[in-house]
């Protein structure tokens, strides 16, 4: 299995939203909202983008207070956290303004407690420095943000991650699997995983192992029949692959 970040349709939409936010008319509307169910590749996308652009990446904690946030932010930016809050945030703002680095806060729903004081502070810093603030979280985050006018009015773009399409699964299989996977198997993996990337990757790893063991040139659904490709604990069942499909589907050639 290759170790690569695969640029699926969700990533493409995220990058389009970043472009839209960066070309905004009003400099203070600098918030990009990213929501999606767990396992749809939201965190991986945010992490990959942060690594790419050198963004300040924070993961909100369940017990984040303003002081805790300040400590985490200073640690991420290597700024002296000592001194009065105003002085510390001035240092943060100056650094952000100088380096022009976006700030990413994943699991941002934890920033909504105490009248969203953490989010208000983050917004204030990014507003003044005119850098992008990217907030990631599960669906419902947008509702929490909508309750605060001063934050919601600054949202430049909102990306909703959706389950991967069959074409996405095909792309992931082509890029990650060292043994080509046939179209019928790709369709089965897509159905079994409900398009959740985490499960798709697991299934591809299993299929690739089968292909390597059997020294197959292309792994088909028949080759992995009976194998547990996807385990979904909520469904309380393992998603095995059926031996064959009723009708073949054309998704283009395997790699």
């Amino acid at each position, binding site marked *: 299995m290759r*170790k*690569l970040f695969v640029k699926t349709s969700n990533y493409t939409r995220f990058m389009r939203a970043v472009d839209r936010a960066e070309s905004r008319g009003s400099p203070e509307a600098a918030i990009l909202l990213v929501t999606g169910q767990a396992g749809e590749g939201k965190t991986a996308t945010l*992490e990959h983008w942060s690594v790419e652009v*050198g963004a300040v990446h924070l993961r909100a904690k369940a017990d984040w207070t303003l002081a805790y946030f300040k400590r985490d932010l200073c640690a991420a930016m*290597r700024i002296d956290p000592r001194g009065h809050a105003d002085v510390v945030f001035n240092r943060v703002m100056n650094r952000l303004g100088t380096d022009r680095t976006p700030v990413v806060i994943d699991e941002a729903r934890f920033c909504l407690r105490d009248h969203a004081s953490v989010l208000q502070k983050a917004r204030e810093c990014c507003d003044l420095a005119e850098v992008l603030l990217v907030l990631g979280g599960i669906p419902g985050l947008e509702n929490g943000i909508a309750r605060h006018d001063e934050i919601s009015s600054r949202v430049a773009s909102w990306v909703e991650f959706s389950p991967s399409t069959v074409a996405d699964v095909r792309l992931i299989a082509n890029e990650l699997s060292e043994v080509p996977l046939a179209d019928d198997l790709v369709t089965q993996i897509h159905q079994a995983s409900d398009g959740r990337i985490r499960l798709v990757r697991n299934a591809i790893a299993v299929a690739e*192992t089968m292909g*390597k063991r059997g020294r197959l040139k292309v792994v088909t659904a028949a080759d992995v029949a009976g194998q547990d490709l996807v385990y979904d604990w909520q469904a309380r069942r393992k998603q095995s692959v059926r031996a064959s499909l009723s009708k073949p589907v054309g998704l283009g050639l395997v790699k």
Partner: protein
Amino acid sequence: MSWPAQKVLAALADKSPLAPAALGRASGVTGKSLENALYRLRKHAFVAIERGCYRITEPGRAFLETGKRFTSGPRGPQPGRRLHRGTLRERAWRAMRIKVKFSSAEIVSLAAKGAESNPDSNVGKYLRALERAGYLMALARREAGTAPTSNGFRRYVLVRNSGPQAPRWLPNHAAVYDPNTEQMHAFSAPEAAR
């Protein structure tokens, strides 16, 4: 010849002294460019000014005879090794700071762009160097490998998150230089001998 100062010097070597307007006509360099060129030539004592007219000096003539070009640089050999920006290791360090606990495979998947020749080897060496210098601690449990006979991937935890700039591994010194703290972190004795 596209260096204004060189043109001015050559014009003065043909005919000296010359008033600024005549010098402009003779060299083809005028206005601010002529002003800057004369300033720099005077700074190097290649040109002198007498009663409002410029004349070439002996060092100026000697310089022209050497056949060298009067350019803005380079002023000598590059003193040290060039630092490259946006490298795989820089991105790997950023990924480590985000993940805190990770496997080498996770770091490669976040940091590699796909154009690198052997990102696994590169990141693997970097991780081992950081571990020896005390930045990373290897965890006892490995992440399951993807190949049938794989021993799995080593997992690490970042124990010294010193700042945004990536520490640089100096193989010849058996150490890691940290630009955040401007300190060298030598490998521990038994590890250095590895």
